[in-house]
């Protein structure tokens, strides 16, 4: 008897984790896969999306399970998973995280918001939505988001044995960092017990959510010779706000002395300046604010600021949009924006 609840045509039960680099989704994927293969004797494979992406960029981790005697020959990324784990809520702005979800699939989202809000943002029509405040749990326990997500995933993947994972966590930490054993097990357990579910019933004729294989923007007729890019600085069209993991700098112009220390240390070139007149009528540069579209939330500027015009802030939904000051780029008239 197979312990796997569902299987696709090739006999696989498939899980896709959507995250940004640095949140530990790859490690979570590896631990899940090992739990199935080495712990339960299933066959399986595990891999990540590969590229030159750095911390804060979108990444995926894939896990395939099948019965022990089934051979895994497929190497391609998982396009129609049974379960999706979204480690970072803001990802939906950059990635179609629920692409290809099975009509009776489960999507787990790390969020504090309501089922309906999340469903709306993900453009989810039906299927089961699971929500856990993994970031909140991790902050309270001073642990990592991925452990809380693992706990919630174990609730969904009920063929896995949560006691075995508790043992893995214990073994991982007890030698070098014994004081981290209990907080991590608590984090796992809280993920396991605090995750909440809501099922949006599918109509009887529902099919799996369509998935689209991303196509390159350019082709052999439109790519310049040798891969040259003539559209210099077109990276300004990118939105990197999804790279932030909960914090951003808040700017108080009244306190600002325009010393430019923040501008000097900012890796993401977010500070916007404008010429104006000082009290004596001399031309001077004044800091207008932050273009949050590019801010990754490193907070170097807060430490550099000598007068506390910049302060730490836990990002609230909508704050960045309401308070951002856009760069005044010398855009080409008629250029793409």
């Amino acid at each position, binding site marked *: 008897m197979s312990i796997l609840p569902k299987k696709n045509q090739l006999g696989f039960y498939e899980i896709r984790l959507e995250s940004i680099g640095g949140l530990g989704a790859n490690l979570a994927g590896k631990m899940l896969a090992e739990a199935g293969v080495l712990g339960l004797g299933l066959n399986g494979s595990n*891999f990540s999306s590969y590229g030159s992406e750095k911390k*804060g960029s979108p990444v995926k981790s894939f896990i395939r399970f099948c019965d022990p005697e089934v051979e895994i020959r*497929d190497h391609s990324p998982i396009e129609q998973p049974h379960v999706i784990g979204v480690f970072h809520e803001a990802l939906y702005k950059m990635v179609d995280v629920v692409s290809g979800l099975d009509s009776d699939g489960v999507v787990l989202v790390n969020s504090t918001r309501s089922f309906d809000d999340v469903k709306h943002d993900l453009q989810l029509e039906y299927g089961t939505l699971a929500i856990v405040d993994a970031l909140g749990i991790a902050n309270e326990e001073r642990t990592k988001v991925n452990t809380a997500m693992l706990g919630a995933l174990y609730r969904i993947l009920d063929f896995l044995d949560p006691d075995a994972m508790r043992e893995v966590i214990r073994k991982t930490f007890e030698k070098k960092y014994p004081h981290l054993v209990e907080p991590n097990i608590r984090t796992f357990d809280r993920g396991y017990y605090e995750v909440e579910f809501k099922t949006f019933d599918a109509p009887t004729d529902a099919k799996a959510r369509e998935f689209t294989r991303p196509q390159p923007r350019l082709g052999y007729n439109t790519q310049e010779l040798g891969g040259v890019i003539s559209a*210099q*600085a077109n990276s300004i069209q990118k939105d990197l706000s999804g790279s932030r993991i909960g914090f951003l700098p808040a700017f108080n112009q009244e306190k600002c002395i325009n010393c*430019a220390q923040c501008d*000097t*240390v900012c890796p993401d070139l977010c500070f916007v300046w404008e010429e104006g007149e000082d009290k004596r009528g001399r031309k001077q540069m004044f800091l207008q604010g932050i273009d949050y579209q590019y801010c990754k939330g490193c907070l170097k500027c*807060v430490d550099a600021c000598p007068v506390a015009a910049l302060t730490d802030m836990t990002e609230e939904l909508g704050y960045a949009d309401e308070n951002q000051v856009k760069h005044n780029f010398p855009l080409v008239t008629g250029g*793409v924006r």
Partner: protein
Amino acid sequence: MATLEENVTTQLSKEQVTTFESGNEMAAYAAAQINYHLMGYFPITPSTEVAQFLDMMKSKGQHDIELVAADGEHGSAGICFGAATTGARVFNATSANGFLYMIEQLPVQSGLRFPMVMNLVTRAVSGPLDIRGDHSDLYYGLNTGWVILTARTPQAVYDMNIMALRLSEHEDVRLPVVVAYDGFFTSHQKRRVDYFKDREDVQSFVGEAPSGFASSIDKDNPKTIGAHMNGDDLINNNYQQSEALYKAYDVYKEIAKDFATFSGRSYGTLDLYKMEDADVALFLLNSAAESAKDVVDRLRERGIKAGIISPNIIRPFPAEDIRQALKNVKALLVGERADSYGAHGANLAHEVKSALQEDKENDTIVLNRVFGMGGKDFYADDAEQFFNMALDAMEKGYAETPFDYYGHTPGEPEKALEPVIEPQNRETYNSGLIKVSENEETGKLDVRVPPLRKLTTKPKRFAPGHGACPGCGIFPGLELFFKGIEGDAVILFQTGCAYVVTSAFPYSSHKQNMIHNLFQNGPATLSGAVEAFFEMKDRGEVDIDDDFTFVMITGDGGMDIGMGSAIGTALRNHKMIILEYDNEGYMNTGSQMSYSTPLGHMTSTTNVSEERPGKPFHHKDTAQIMASTNIPYVFTGTEAYPQDLIKKAAKAQWYAQNEGLVYGKLLITCPLNWKSNDRDGENIMKAAVESCFFPLYEVERGETAITYDPEAKNKRIELSEWLQYMGKTKHLLKESNADLLQEFADEVESRWKTLKVKHETPLI
């Protein structure tokens, strides 16, 4: 992996354990069990993990392999060759341009007949850089005289690594062996793998190294290794090598047979999947063949007799076995992840066709498709398309299009890239705020720069939207430097994080002209651009008011592999600037040790354990090396001292436009790999300067001047105050590492004192 025939007994099989690992982990594991004498390596994605895993295992005392971190792949191949001449067992792993960079050495290794084993974790070769897997690197290896085994799965990677050494050392072969497996698809996908519990079993299968062959350290029988020849002799050497490579065919079969008994897993020269009665077949190398097998099953359910041929060895090419396998096949599609441009088909299609030519009765129609370049995924429906093409040829009785690409897309004209911002040029960057003049009294330059606030009028050289990690120190460093540079710049980036995050097609974060070249060759490349510019200007072919400032940017260890090019360029004294952002490691490829990693610091190839406390030797003093080439200006700088850096940039520009080459080194923070807080970057830089680890100074026309002296300002701090910021150095603060910390502190102190003497004494 082919399942074992029923009649092969598994009684002789040694005890095996199941694990769940990737191809790279299994290559490293096999090497550790064999316990090679030496691995000379240089990190390159996706093969890097092999050395990383071996370093980690060594830190746990699991093998004794001497791991030599070379200064580039050419060097790594030299280290391996030298070690092999002693009769030592030698191992390496590389990919893509790393393989090409060492390729000069590969025929030396095979032509002089010294065995070794190298894992080639296949990846696309640059042109446009692409880190993912295809076979364009492997195909450059076809004519090197090495035996080439191909491994489709992590299991095969492990197994072939064990067979490879025995094959390489066999007295009838005596040739180096490549084990090639697919970058990422096989190297990074974790699968269920069985391995031998006892390394002694592995070692007994490989056997003792055969004796009686030339050794460079045989004191009783001295040898001349590497005499030069003329054609009369060389043709005989080549003939011997050719014969040996063909003999490797039979030797391989023999070893594979033994291995089947030993392990329960058999690897014929060809992996044949349902070929017995196949009408149509695909010939595919490595992982794609595995993926396509699922499609064969599906087609057979529909009554289509489909099959897959995938070689386990391609040098020597299994021509006879291919002829046999294709006897009754009506149509074959050879799918290849590399092209032989202009040859009307890629390499293996030609070799298959030429094998069939020998069989006068064969009338298999052969089609050829180039697919999956640069790691483009190969899905089941792609394999199905391939079968459809073969079926179409079978029905028609001929191939309508014998050779083509597959998976290429034309693109839609309305999606073509359009300019986004106005060109940023001389006018944009001439702020008029930076004043440089020659002081005739001192023979030095005087520089005046305004406050930082004023300089915010000057636009940034790079556009936001780049993909660097949060808190990355590269851009604050580079932008501060460029605050001091007026007018137009031509900027070359060597491969590294700064390049990768600003140039991911089809996006660019560059505003001015940018050139990329691979990271051993940036200085030479830019020097070519400089000289061509001046030559064309002299001929009146370029109409320009102010000269460009040519700046080459490197980091992530680029001053290791590119040192030769940098010194050559410095000695030629071209009018350009070499700017290094030093992040103390090969951070772009996952934090491997570079020569500028300081003593004891942890990286992914200098793991920390009780026996092995991080990097084993002191950091490279690149600024002093470059100063000794007697170029007009050398400087160090960091974001924590902005005015100091901007002034030095202004001087750098003056010297690069008037006298010749400038070298500048910026220390920058890499929070990800230094394991520091994103927000601490500036504080860490400040502490690096105040602890005198990274003194701020310049060498102007041969005279050294310290530009910020923490002692004079009463700001000097202990080295530990800098080290406490970073996870990579936490262990150095432990009591048990006090001696190591002292050794590091002594080195810092000694370099600082030397610098002070130079500062005080203009003549040295």
